[in-house]
């Protein structure tokens, strides 16, 4: 049932549904989740981690016997997508951490997804096998070849049922096209091409061709000493296969049209908000750096995340965003400390809900925030083991900025900056969200009446 599609925030109570991952207090580095993504129907939920593994969860069919277990997500497939590599020329390691996963729309029984680390994109096919052929002529059941001279009878192999097996196979490997670290991949609406973006360049690929790519954006200066800006994220328009956007470390977004030229160095639109001179400090540029950019499902808006805010832009208005939401403005006076401990460089992502009416992004202390664009209400929730009783309603959290701290509020100085929610995902049509808290994946759903 389409619960909450387009529903307003005050009607939605979020409940704990599931948590995946170990409870151990010590976190194994390789278990840290680095990306989360629902597929186009919401049936599958994929996570990538620092150890290069991909885990796919599948939503179980809803059962009439247990209506309150509204389709739980269970492990469907786990595979090692990327391995650590060594770049001998530069004497540097290439991390196996999965930076992004993007699903392809389903076109047959198999599922396809793209996963990428810093350097290499891979297309994985995830398919089910529940039958096995038996009765070959030339080999026996163990696969060993039979002596042809011993064969006296011919038979037709038959398919026999077997235990369901889900296998993931790498179908394409797109390598050697990025000098710098890949930060984004995006599947085009034509489903034939996709793009991969690194710090300085964006390449366009055809799914069928792995040994070539088109370079469509290149901001590398001829003289590297003049480098002052890098690409931070990129995405294709959801409907127009010729249009894409990319964001920069200077807080700008460029929209490009691939029909205009082969190399899209000239933008069709340039989105930038004028700087507020009263807020200027040495950290202004750093906090304006955009860490994520996402088109709305409608394609009419883009959402950007910088260090302290989420902004919504209308594609038809370039000179300022139409909406700005404060994620954790209480950090503004702490920027120096956050610069010192490097937290100021944390890259938070942001997501739209299915109807583009609510946006969500993460914060520190395992808090995440939702903003309702219509009612202008917002809420802060927490992903923690304490709130992990089945169907327990999440209580809104509040950070107290100064003066008297009320009960249940938490003061800024008590926030745990090692617990950061960088990656979240929203089901394409229902109020189900997946929140990655370091090495744990939380799934929350709205309350069923």
């Amino acid at each position: 049932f389409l619960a909450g599609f387009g529903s307003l925030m005050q009607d939605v109570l979020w409940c704990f549904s599931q948590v995946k991952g170990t409870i151990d207090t010590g976190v194994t580095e390789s278990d840290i989740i680095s990306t989360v993504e629902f597929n186009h129907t919401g049936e599958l939920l994929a996570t990538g981690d620092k150890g290069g593994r991909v885990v796919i969860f599948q939503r179980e069919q809803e059962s009439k016997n247990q209506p309150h277990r509204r389709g739980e997500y269970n492990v469907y497939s786990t595979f090692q997508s990327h391995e650590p590599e060594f770049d001998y020329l530069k004497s540097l390691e290439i991390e196996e951490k999965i930076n992004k996963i993007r699903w392809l729309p389903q076109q047959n029984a198999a599922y396809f997804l793209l996963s990428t680390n810093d350097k290499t994109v891979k297309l994985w096919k995830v398919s089910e096998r529940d039958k096995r052929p038996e009765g070959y002529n030339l080999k026996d059941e163990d696969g060993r070849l039979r002596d042809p001279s011993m064969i006296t009878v011919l038979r037709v192999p038959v398919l026999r049922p077997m235990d369901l097996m889900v296998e993931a196979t790498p179908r394409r490997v797109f390598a050697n096209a990025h000098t710098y670290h890949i930060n984004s991949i995006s599947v085009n609406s034509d489903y034939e091409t996709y793009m991969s973006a690194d710090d300085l360049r964006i390449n366009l690929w055809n799914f069928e061709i792995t040994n070539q790519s088109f370079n469509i954006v290149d901001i590398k200066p001829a003289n590297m000493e003049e480098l002052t800006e890098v690409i931070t994220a990129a995405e294709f328009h959801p409907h127009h296969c010729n249009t894409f956007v990319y964001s920069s470390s200077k807080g700008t977004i460029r929209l490009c049209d691939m029909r205009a030229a082969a190399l899209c160095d000239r933008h069709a639109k340039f989105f930038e908000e004028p700087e507020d001179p009263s807020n200027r400090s040495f950290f202004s540029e750093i906090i304006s750096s955009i860490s994520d950019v996402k088109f709305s499902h409608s394609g009419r808006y883009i959402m950007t995340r910088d260090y302290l805010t989420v902004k919504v832009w209308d594609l038809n208005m370039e000179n300022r965003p139409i909406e700005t939401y404060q994620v954790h403005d209480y950090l503004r006076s702490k920027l120096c400390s956050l610069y010192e401990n490097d937290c100021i460089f944390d890259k938070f992502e942001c997501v739209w809900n299915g109807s583009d009416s609510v946006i969500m992004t993460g914060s520190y202390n395992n808090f995440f925030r939702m903003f309702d664009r219509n009612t202008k209400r917002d809420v802060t929730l927490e992903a923690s083991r304490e709130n992990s009783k089945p169907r327990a309603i999440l209580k809104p959290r509040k950070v107290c900025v100064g003066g008297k701290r009320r009960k249940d509020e938490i003061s800024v100085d008590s926030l745990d900056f090692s617990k950061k929610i960088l990656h979240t995902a929203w089901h394409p049509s229902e109020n189900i969200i997946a929140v990655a808290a370091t090495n744990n994946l939380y799934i929350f759903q709205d309350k069923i009446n």
Partner: protein
Amino acid sequence: MFVRGLKRKCFDGEEDIEGTLAGIKAIPSYNLQRQSLLDMSLVKLQLCHMLVEPNLCRSVLIANTVRQIQEEMTQDGTWQMINTQSTGQASLDRLVSTDILCRSSRDQAEGKHVSAYGTFNKDFESDQAQDSSETMSTASSVQAPRNLQSNVWEMENPQENKGNFQKSLDQIFETLENKSPNSVEDLFSEVENSYYDLDTMLTGMMSNTKMGHCDSLETFSSPTNTASNSNCKSDLNDLDHIVEILVES
């Protein structure tokens, strides 16, 4: 994790001493804090040179911050020859609270574009070593490393005012390249300890208890001390001398 206590801007050398439960605190001047931010940024650039492969976005943002500070200091006329020795060993020991810098600061006039950060762009340059082909339709997947313009930043002579600054950055990276794995450990252990030092320093700044941190004041305050060894600890007499200088300035 965060700095406690109140800090206020220091005007005309007068210092507002705020008495609190924690003890007597002094307020580092804006200039001192700015210098501290500059030092911190340089250390960060060093550190990111040590990592697996530097995060280019972070490096660029830090470099831009360094450039901003340098521009402002040049316009202020407070830009001084940075002692190469001390910069090369810039450590978090010498940091002061940079709270003031988080507030909206004074206007920064439009500076001319400061280019020629040749040396610390070395790590940007080194990425050119393997610039694989982003090709148009007919190219194959053969990698074509560009000719390493390895000498470009060496040959480019630092321009007048930036000479020493670049030289010090140069030294940073040369030093880093020659560092053995053991010294990498040292570098990181240095950093770790410094967080505690920062804490203690911020609660006891300018009190006579923590004399090691006067090094920053020494270097900052006068050309007469350019040869200071950043690791030497001042004794009480030097401390008085430095306080005197600061108060007069």
